[in-house]
């Protein structure tokens, strides 16, 4: 009887090497290259310093007990209760009303004054937190009734001095902030992800199971 030819140890090791190479290759593709390919990057039309604008010592009128109240100063509600979202130029010009006399001395403000205020042109901001069209979200229900801080969903955005590049998912067109900055989708903070499950999870946790009915958040 002839013995079946068994691969040598060397062949085993060699095969293992290829396995590991493939394995690592995939990890690199999946964790490093994939996110780079998946998201497109686009700078914002100009910078906006949230930290500066939310400082009551520097900016008149930014007052309020809670952080939410300070945010609402610009990101407020219309009379019918709908959320204003990113402010229109008219909100900016409540303070930055004269292109000739900037309030500070940064080149950013100068560019803003010349490029938008003087020309009375809206700033084409790219919204980090825009949900798709099928989603209905009521800010007033969460902020006023639910007394949620803006941070719960928007994180430290209000403390940033520099606007990061806007990243959009090439496939879905969604902002990266919906899935979260971590490609793993794992979250450690409530604001790390804004997917449907995250909304539902919070509703359940807060004892608002009834708000997980489909039509509460879909339109």
């Amino acid at each position, binding site marked *: 009887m002839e013995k079946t030819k068994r691969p040598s140890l060397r062949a085993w090791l060699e095969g293992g090497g*290829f396995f590991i190479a493939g394995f690592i290759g995939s*990890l690199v*593709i999946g964790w490093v290259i994939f996110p780079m390919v998946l998201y497109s990057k686009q700078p914002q039309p100009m910078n906006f310093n949230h930290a500066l604008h939310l400082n009551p010592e520097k900016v008149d009128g930014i007052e309020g007990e809670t952080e939410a109240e300070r945010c609402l100063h610009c990101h407020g509600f*219309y009379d019918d209760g709908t959320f204003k979202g990113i402010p229109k130029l008219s909100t900016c010009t409540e303070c930055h009303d004269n292109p000739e006399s900037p309030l500070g001395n940064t080149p950013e403000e100068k560019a803003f004054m010349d490029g938008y205020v003087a020309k009375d042109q809206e700033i084409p901001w790219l919204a980090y937190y825009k949900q798709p*069209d099928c989603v209905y979200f009521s800010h007033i229900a969460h902020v006023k009734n639910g007394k949620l801080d803006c941070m719960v969903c928007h994180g430290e955005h209000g403390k940033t001095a520099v606007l990061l590049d806007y990243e959009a*998912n090439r*496939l879905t067109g969604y902002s990266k902030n919906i899935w979260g900055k971590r*490609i793993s*989708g794992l979250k450690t903070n409530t604001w790390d992800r804004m997917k449907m499950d995250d909304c539902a999870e919070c509703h359940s946790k807060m004892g608002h199971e009834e708000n997980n009915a489909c039509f509460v958040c879909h339109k």
Partner: protein
Amino acid sequence: MELNRRNFISLMVGGVAGMHITPLPWKLTDDIAIWTQNWPWVPVPPAGAFNSAKSVCTLCPGGCGIEVRKVDGRAVKIEGRTDFPVNPGGICPVGMGGLQLLYNEDIRFTRPMKRVGPRGAGQFADISWKEAVGILSERIGGLRKKGAGEAIAAIDGNSARSATALLVERLLKAVGSPNYLRAPSLDDTYSLANLMMLGTDGPMAYDLENSDFILSFGAGLIEGWGAPGRMINAWSIWRDQETRGKVKVVQVEARASNTASKADQWVAVMPGTEGALALAMAHVIIKEGLYNKEFVGGYTSGFNEWSSFVIRQYSPEQAAAVTSCPAEEIRSLARAFAKSKAPVALCGRGKGTLNGSLYESMCIQSLNALTGGINRIGGVLVQDHLPLASLPDITYDEVSRQGVQKARLDHAGTPKFPYAQSVASLFAKEVREAADSRIDTLLVFGSNPVQTLPDGGLFRKALSKIPFIVSFSSFRDDTSMYADLVLPDHTYLEKMDEVVWPAGLQYPLYSLTRPVVKPLYETKNCGDTIIELARAIGGSVAASFPWKGFEDVVKHRAKGLFDSAKGLTGYKADSPVWKMMQKAEEITPDYKSFDDLWNKLSKGGFWYRPVHNYGRWDSIFKTATGKFEFVSTRLQLAIQGYLRQNQADSALSGLGIGAGAQVAAYPHYEETNAQVDTKVYPITLVPYEMINLASGSVASPPHLNKTIFDNQLLKEDSFAEINPKTASQLGIKEGDPVFIESAAGRIRVRVSIFEGAMPGCVFVPLGFGRIGWDEFTRGKGANPNDIILPRMDPVSGQPVWWKTPVKITKA
């Protein structure tokens, strides 16, 4: 190290294993699912600040109040207004779909254009406003130089007595042309009937909400007649639990229309014999002494003559033979009508988009006089026109002074049509038949005669003999397809415009539309275009238009309201005007100065007068006798005048009057049958109107196509309704394609078998068969106007469109 088969597999397995602990497959699966939910071509409506703007709908003469919901500057929904006197919150389907007329580039002229293709093909090239006005002013100037101002004609569909209509008429006079034509409408018939019997040509004001017996001779009360928002609300009031049974609505019509079906009683009569029915009712009321003796005895003239004529010739039995309505039904109807507290009889056909018959209106108005329902609460109120300030005199030069005195092409105002203002169908006939058309330039304002004139296509054919056609339409409508030059108007949602007394309303109301959105394209308010055109023509024409713009004209006119009458500009839904009118007290205006009034008006506001002086029978009639005239003096004079010019016997038939000279001035029934062989054309074609199908100059917004049943329109075929008996006689079945053929032509339709259709008739809806517009509208269905024999209603000269002898053959 060699990449053999085994190692390759190892690499792959390693790769696959590794892949599973990366986010790639999971995230990609999720993303692909999301990708399928967000196709880039599915529109995502931009969000923004919700706001609204109030205005008035002018898609029909009803003038309902509308509130337009907007997102930033974009209109997204039209809703009815609850702070507007005409309609408490409701509007009709056409008005509801209005945004589809605003936001559709394919149906609009986005800037001035000139024709580049053959006429009717709808091929135009962009030009500038300067060039467009230049072309037209030079042409008009050229004609004027030749002393041929009358070669310019205009057909106008802007509502009568509105500022735009007055400017169009003024332009024509100023350039020296008498040929100002109006698209016919029911209001013309109403005014004429009132002029004959009451001596004033004021609007017909039926106080329906306060009536307890509404006898409608063919008016589509819930199908678009008057202001639909008002009428359907009134209907709802009559059907309330509390009032149910207290108000009776009777509809006289040849077809089980919505109004007929939803009425308490449907009286079916042969189309066009409504006048005979009214006279037979009068016969019963007179004979049984049920008439209001105080009113008839003290404030009417001609009663004795007319009543003996009615007693002699219109017994219920005699009328039954004409109308096919049983004599007993006529009797009980007459008794029920006359014994009601506040009965009112109203005439009309469908929506009132087209004219009615003068004699018929007079017959029906006689019923109101017999019951003393003239200027009585719940009856017919005698109203004057709105006290708007008149425009300053026109400046004439030699050409225009001579021009306006020349004969009108349509013979309106001549002894043949002594009281007609304009007869568009006769104009078309003259242009068509004249060897050389004297008309060089036709201006088309706010109307769509190619589609809407019931003349067997005569107007369309006449256009080929007019060298130059100018459209001022907002839309690529059926008539503007033939235009050589287009100076587009704004749509009603982009402009300021007047609504002067909404159709059928019983109290004076004036309202202004306002731009609810900024004009989307390079269009211009037609009033401004006219002023600009006049300025470009120069000389006395320019001097006749001294205003900076249209708004100045409107403001000037509104001053008259402030100066000469007391009205209100505010309204609360809980005190409807018809209730306010029950108390005949004076009111205190809720505005302090003219500026205050104007400020309110110009924001889509309104002015109305919710009080009325009832009775006053000794002073309201402006007839020769100072009374309500059963026998119209005006008509008598006209007939005598005509007879003096034309020798005896057959002369009256020249007026279209078949009855003898004796009764020609009476309200009487005229058999306006066409002179064709009824053996060849045994069926009667009756056009009808639907509230969810726009039959006027503007086509239905596409949303309305959803409301059209598939036995009304299927693909490109519209349907004709036929009684099952008639269908079986003709051997046709449901859905069969047929030709309906008259002496004027034929149309192809399918058949819908309907028990509610009078046997021997075929009912075809008005509003289909359009040749302009876009793929939502164009080429859908047939237009019965195309085969209506052009015949004249006596005296008024307007077309008899409600019955045409036809034959039906399988297609």
